[in-house]
């Protein structure tokens, strides 16, 4: 996933060819989209595939509208009561779980990363454990998280936390080591204390690696939390997806996946823009 970070940045279309090239690209994109949707619709209409597995675009569109725009849940927010589509409540729960996981995993990852980056001894002693634990499938820890934090949101927050901890700690440690020594010497010559060194020198100098770590961490935290919701939960977007599977409501499942991908890609692009801006 480390590669995905800068690949998005390099994906911007070239502007060398001027308007005509841009127009050609736009036309090709429209043609590709139209072709894909046309093939889908033809497959749905042909009856060659199961109609329920490949529903028509109209059915998916209707389901998307029902998901996002038809109020079917009475949501009490403070003293007011709102009628909203139930989806937003589930989305809010998932976002809150991911947010809590990111906060806990992010801050602890940052603290541990700073400690490892600043101290070569600690780094040599412990960083290899983290480096090799990073690319293991975190979802297999879910049974333990259920045991330790219960079947409610706690275990999902824990999944988000352990998912995002590793990329953030490794990015922070690597970022810390990349800081130019002259900056550190400037800080020392001003007799900054540890807290001042962290806030005035280290963190500003390692903004880019930290944002990259947060971006990677956010991606895996979303996956960890949602997968945990599909395994054992009664709320959240992950639960809605597996519920659509259990009730074989395929248009709803497609709608959920579309919305989820749009939200996830949008969030990733926002963090990516923050890193460049």
């Amino acid at each position, binding site marked *: 996933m480390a590669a995905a970070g800068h690949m*998005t940045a390099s994906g911007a279309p070239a502007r060398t060819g001027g308007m005509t090239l841009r127009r050609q690209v736009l036309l090709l994109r429209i043609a590709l989209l139209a072709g894909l949707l046309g093939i889908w619709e033809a497959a749905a209409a042909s009856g060659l595939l199961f109609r329920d597995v490949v529903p028509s675009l109209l059915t998916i569109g209707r389901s998307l509208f029902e998901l996002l725009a038809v109020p079917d849940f009475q949501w009490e927010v403070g003293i007011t009561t709102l009628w909203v589509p139930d989806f937003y409540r589930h989305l809010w729960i998932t976002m809150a779980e991911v947010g809590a996981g990111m906060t806990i995993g992010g801050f602890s990852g940052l603290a541990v990363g700073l400690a490892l980056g600043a101290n070569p001894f600690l780094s040599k002693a412990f960083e290899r454990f983290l480096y090799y634990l990073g690319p293991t499938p975190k979802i297999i820890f879910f049974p*333990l998280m259920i045991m330790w934090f219960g079947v409610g949101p706690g275990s999902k927050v824990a999944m988000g936390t352990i998912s995002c901890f590793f990329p953030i700690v490794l990015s922070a440690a690597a970022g810390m080591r990349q800081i130019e020594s002259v900056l550190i010497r400037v800080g020392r010559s001003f007799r900054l204390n540890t807290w001042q060194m962290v806030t005035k020198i280290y963190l500003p100098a390692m903004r880019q690696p930290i944002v990259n770590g947060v971006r990677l961490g956010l991606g895996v935290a979303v996956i960890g939390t949602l997968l945990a919701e599909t395994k054992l939960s009664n709320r959240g977007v992950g639960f809605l997806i597996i519920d659509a599977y259990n009730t074989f409501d395929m248009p709803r*499942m497609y709608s959920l996946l579309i919305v989820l991908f749009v939200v996830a890609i949008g969030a990733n692009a926002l963090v990516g823009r923050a890193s460049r801006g």
Partner: protein
Amino acid sequence: MSAQWLRRNDVIPVLFGIACLLAFFVLIEILVASGKINPFIVPKPSEIVTSFGRIIADENVLSRFFVTCGEALAASLMLAVTGIGLGVLLHRLRLLRLATETWVAAMASAPLVLMYPLFLVLFGRSVWTVIMIGFVAALPPVVLKTLEGLSGTRAVLINVGRSFNLTPSQLYWKILFPSALPTIFVGVRLGMIFALINIVGVEFLINFGGLGQLVNELSERYDLPGTFAAICFVILVSVVFFMATERIERWLRPGT
């Protein structure tokens, strides 16, 4: 983090790290034995160690390991063929690349593994669901890295090829492909790691297949030491896989 940095280790800090880990296990052992930690929530580390033999003998860990390896191998082969193929295609057709590269990059940031219920409907609760999730979730990085490798070929090399009057196909096989191979392998390696993570994850989630299912089954049986031992085994397999691919990458990219 560079591999060189990892190699240049001192013995004392490494021993200190291992000693801390062992001390942590001893502490947990003491806390559980003294009743400070509930043994139904955290088993004794010694019980976990002894249950390794039990799960290897009773739960067919070896055959499960080969099932997971087979799935990962199938997904990796599909990844290499399709991912590199798509990367080459996008490199050759510039307009197609300009139109779709951002889409592929967006797909790389989408939680594709969440499509597993859809794949369950399409392929049933079978080995193909597991393989296809591994394949689809890991495809974007392979495509993008192949593209990056081919585009990153130094112009001077291509000019040398042209000065020798190489045909486009010769230029591809003699110049572009060998020059891009290390970067392509980075993509394939990333893809293989993603595939393995997703394969074990989906095995766990749909309770089907090899090592992932073992963790699920043991946890559903409430066999806590066994669950811990199975998790340790999965971590061991991932780490060995990660280290092996890292070595191959180092061998392919000497001097980096």
